[in-house]
Each structure stands twice: as C-alpha cells, then as structure tokens.
C-alpha cells in the first residue's frame, strides 16, 4: 500500500501532467474535432516549437518563454499557409483520409529537418530554476511544471472563449460544416479555415514551449505523443475544448496514480484502455462531442 504522502505527491504530479496534456491536445480538438482534419503533425510541431525554445535559450541565453513572442505568430502564419496551400486543395470527400497522409508527410519532413539542423541529440533546456520547487502540504511542486500548467490554463480559456463567443468561432464551425452555405451567408471561408488552422498551430507553439521547460526533446519524440493526445481528444469528445481539458486532467491523474502499482510502461496503457472503452461505450466521447462520431 503506497503511503499517503506518495499518493498526494502523485496526485499533484498527475494534475500538473494532465494540465500539460490538455495544452498539448488543445490544437487537436480544433482541427480534428472542428475541422475534420486528422493532424498527425501536431506533435511534430510541438517538438519544433520546443526546439525553437531550446535554441533561443541556448543561443541567445534568454528565457525560453520569450521565444513565444516569435513562435506564436510564426506558427499561426505557418498554419494559415498549410491550410491554404495544402489542406484546402484536398477533395472534401476524402479529406479525412488524405489529411492523415499529408500531415503524416509533414511530420516526417519536420522530423527530418530537425534531425538535419540539430542532429538526433537529446536536448534539454538548462534553466536556473529547472530544479527549483516549493512545498505544498507536504508535496513538492516543481516551478517549471507549475509554469507549464499556467500556460495551459490561460491558452485553453482563451481558446474556449474564442470558439464559443466570437464571430470567428461561429464562422469557423459553419465553414467546416457546410462550406457553400457559409460562403452564401457572407463568410470568407478560405480565410476563416486558414485562421482556424493557424490558431491550432499557435497552441502548438505554446504547448511546445511549455513542454521544453521540463523534458528532453529529440526529433523523433513526436511519435511518442501522438497516441496519448489522440486518446485524450476522443475521450473528451471530439471538438470540445472543455472536454479535452477534463479528459486530459483525468488521464494524467490516472497515469500518475497507476504508475505506483503498475510501473511506467503498463501505466501508459491507460490511454488506450480509455480510448477503447470510450469508443465502445460512448463513441461521441464522455464530456463534449455531439454528432461527431459519424464523420
């Protein structure tokens, strides 16, 4: 039986981890849930952002968080270009399938270019406060993990408000659901879809930077993230930002707690077990998701 202190520490770690997962999955809910694009390259972009943060820190010696000033607009622009240049040219009938392949191709290219530019070496940002931590009711909370959690909370809240409350959010959903009808009510569908994708990639910039604060990165790391992130958005209900956040916290917590009795490897299976359970019981996801199971 694990001690109370270990349990509490694991809960804290699990929540912090879950927050991180939520941030990393945020972009996926956007393109996968709302835009019907299976974006395999999302985690590759996360790693790219993490590399840029690392590089900023390594070369310029400034705090990696500062790199956000550049990477967020940069990724937004890249997202717009990607959507306009590639995804919008795919046939709507086969969009889902072809988007898997085209984004897979992008992921390969990013991995290859990262390997080319930075070699396959494992990199980790060296921060003055990298090992700093404080005590909270007997558990230790690492400062870097808390920063990542904060970034996650802020970005997710912003995303939620944007999708639910703004004209842009409505226009984006309308564009994806019936492009001709959206054009006919006066929506500039090209621009809207482009911005939607850009937004998704902008969250990848934030997520990647947060990721870089406390983990090692290497070019092929993105494969490691695809499965868990996909599981999160399916469990959370495709297209639902709050759903993804809730699922991420829950799965992060579950993984952290399960590691105590089961060890790290088996604990990872919790994502897939949850994924299969969700699809078997409630294909539309547990938290959000409405008609989404049928696309």
């Amino acid at each position, binding site marked *: 039986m694990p001690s109370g202190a270990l349990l509490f520490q694991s809960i804290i770690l699990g929540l912090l981890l879950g927050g991180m997962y939520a941030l990393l999955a945020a972009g996926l809910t956007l393109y996968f849930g709302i835009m019907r694009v299976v974006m395999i390259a999302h985690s590759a972009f996360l790693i790219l952002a993490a590399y840029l943060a690392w590089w900023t820190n390594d070369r310029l010696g400034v705090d990696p968080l500062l790199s956000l000033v550049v990477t967020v607009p940069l990724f937004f622009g890249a997202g717009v270009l990607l959507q306009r240049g590639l995804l919008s040219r795919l046939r709507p009938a086969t969009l889902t399938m072809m988007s898997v392949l085209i984004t897979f191709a992008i992921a390969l290219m990013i991995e290859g270019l990262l390997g080319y530019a930075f070699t396959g070496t494992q990199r980790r940002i060296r921060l003055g406060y990298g090992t700093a931590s404080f005590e909270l009711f007997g558990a230790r909370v690492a400062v870097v993990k808390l920063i990542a959690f904060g970034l996650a909370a802020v970005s997710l809240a912003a995303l939620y408000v944007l999708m639910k409350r703004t004209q842009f959010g409505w226009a984006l959903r309308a564009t994806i659901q019936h492009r001709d009808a959206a*054009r006919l009510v006066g929506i500039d569908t090209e621009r809207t879809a482009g911005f939607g994708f850009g937004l998704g990639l902008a969250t990848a910039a934030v997520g990647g930077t947060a990721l870089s604060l406390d983990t090692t990165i290497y070019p092929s790391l993105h494969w490691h993230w695809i499965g868990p992130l996909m599981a999160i958005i399916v469990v959370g209900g495709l297209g639902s930002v709050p759903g993804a956040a809730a699922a991420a916290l829950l799965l992060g917590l579950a993984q952290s707690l399960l590691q105590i009795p089961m060890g790290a490897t088996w604990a990872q299976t919790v994502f897939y077990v949850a994924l299969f359970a969700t699809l078997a019981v409630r294909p539309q996801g547990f938290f959000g998701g409405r008609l989404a199971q049928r696309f």
Partner: protein
Amino acid sequence: MSEIELVDVRAGYGRAAPVLRGFSVAVPAGTVVCLVGPNGAGKSTVLKVASGLLSPRSGRVLVGGKDLTGAGPQRMLAEGVALVLQGHSVFREMTVEENVLLGGYTLHDRTEKTRRARFVKELLPVVGERWNSLAGLLSGGQQKQVEFARSLMVDPKVVLLDEPSMGLDPKATSTIFDQVVRMRDAGTAVLLVEQNARRALETADLGCVLDLGRVHISGPAADLLADPQLGELYLGGRPAV
C-alpha cells in the same frame, strides 16, 4: 432595368461537357421569375452561377447593371444577391440560434439582428420552438425552414430560391410562397426554381422552361401554365382528384 441578368452563360463542372449552353435570363425588380425543367436540366447550375458559387465559362452576370461575372458569393451578397441552396444546407452541428444568427453574419447592427430574429421566429414557429436544438437533429422539413429563416436575416435585392418548398408540409409551403409574394411586393427580384411547378407558376410573374442547358421557352407564367404540351412534358398532368 433588371436587378439580375444572365447573358449567354455557358457553365459546367470540372472538365465535363458544359451544363449551361448559352443560357440567358433577366429578373426585374419586383418580379418573380420561375424556372422549371426536368431533373438535370441545369436549374441549380443557373442559380449557382447567379450567386457566384460557380464561375461561368463564358457569358456575363449582371447585377443592377454592373458586370459581376466571376465574382464570389461574398461579393455577390454584398451587392444584394442571396441564394438558398437546394437540399439541406444547415450547419448541422450548430444550434438553430447559431444558424439563424449566422444568416446575419454581414449585419453589424445588433438591434437589427435581434429584430429580424424575432421576425423569423414569428413567421416560422418551428424555428422559435427549437431555438436551442442542434440543427442537424431536426426533421427534414424543419431544417428546410431553418434555412429559409437564415436567408431572411438579410434583406437582399435579389433572392435566388432553389426548391424552397421541398419537404415542407402544406402549411409551411404556403408560408413560404406568401413570403415570396411579400418580397416581390417590397421590390425584390426573385428567381425561383420549383418542381412544385404549377403552384410556383401561379405565384410567379414570368416563367422560363429550361432544358438541355438552354431556355426552351419563356413567357408570362400564366401562358406557360395554359400550354398543354408543356404541361405534359414539364409540369405534369394535374392528376384527377
């Protein structure tokens, strides 16, 4: 002067043979022109060209005398041309509210939006009743009504309707035809495609029979209705009741 005019339009899809082969039509303000024709004649294609969804291969599209050939739907809407698509085009995973309010996407005046929303709720009670449901979960006819409501959120000079009565029950059909008459009376130019051809021609001022991508015959709606040969080929014999 006609509010909208298509001149000698040739249009088609992809690399296939053209669907419209030199089609012309003009709709003056305050007039309802009804377009009828067999399935696959190209009626929807005409409306797609007129609304900017499809660029013609040749020919011209004039709106209020201005040449807008090749302009996109956004531009057309700005010039006062609105289209209600055939079939179902609600935003399925958005609520009726979101659907209807999106109809007023180009309106920036909030009070105007609210006023119009109230108007469509009154006109089509279903819309008000199911205000917070997902549009994709409504029945076929209910969705059609939501689409019509959506198009009523703006006040265009030219309205293009592609079989607005399809799937509607008799009451809702009447509501829609009444609304068409009201629009005409307010000076709107209406180009109406209907398979409910007799009913439509009774409402319309001018009729136009389309076949093989060309105008087969056109004239005052009443004349077309009276032509027995047209009746057999395009309008259907009125079954003995």
